[in-house]
């Protein structure tokens, strides 16, 4: 994995100083995140920035990789929502069945 500073330093345009600061801040936050998808996204983007600077990736390829990463994060969000809804349903159905069968059944 490329270091954050080497990734940020691939941006040579001085007029983008603010962008560089923001990029450094976001890459640092991603690096320390507990969610694997976020941490890995930071590592990948740092690596791809350096590869692009070295000419190993074209701008179009770099853009395509970023898009694929963006779509992966969208998929991750969808999966979390499915997990949460499925969990809710399991608990709700379990509760209804338990109360109807065991508690109401005994009470009436």
């Amino acid at each position: 994995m490329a270091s954050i500073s080497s990734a940020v330093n691939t941006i040579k345009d001085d007029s983008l100083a603010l962008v560089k600061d923001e990029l450094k801040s976001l890459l640092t936050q991603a690096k320390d995140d507990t969610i694997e998808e976020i941490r890995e996204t930071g590592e990948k983007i740092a690596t791809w920035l350096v590869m692009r600077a070295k000419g190993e990736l074209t701008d179009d390829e770099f853009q395509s990789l970023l898009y694929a990463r963006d779509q992966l994060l969208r998929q991750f969000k969808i999966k979390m929502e499915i997990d949460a809804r499925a969990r809710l349903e399991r608990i709700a159905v379990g509760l209804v069945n338990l109360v109807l069968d065991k508690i109401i059944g005994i009470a009436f």
Partner: protein
Amino acid sequence: MHAPARALTHRLVFFLSVLFALVTSGCALFTSHYDAGAYQNFTNLKAFHLKFLEDQTAQEGATYSEERMTSACDVGELKFREADEYARGKGDSLRIDALDVLHNVFKDNCKLARKQKKLFNPVYINELTPTLTRNYDLAIAGELARVKNPNSK
């Protein structure tokens, strides 16, 4: 029955009615159940997409053919449309979205291929493949995580 006991019973019946209505109404709070067809579509598309990238990557002896690339993209487009129609028939927006995300990446791959008019750079494919594989694995895991999956404990 004493008044406090009656009040408690009324509350319990109300709570159960609401819960029962939620469970049986297919409310958006819940997700649709596991579907073997959707699972199969995700796994088939994963195999197809990875093979497509492999076939269209520059390697010794391989030559670029716009006709072959266009044909492969058309085949993929049809597979995604079929899977999309199937998902829409099931009426769960999360499943449709999961498929849409994968379709977006495929369309982007074809767009890049058409633009550069050459086989994919192996360095680019090496970087893309783990991200794409993880994307499919999450979609497949999402299908398996739904309730009433006969294979889950």
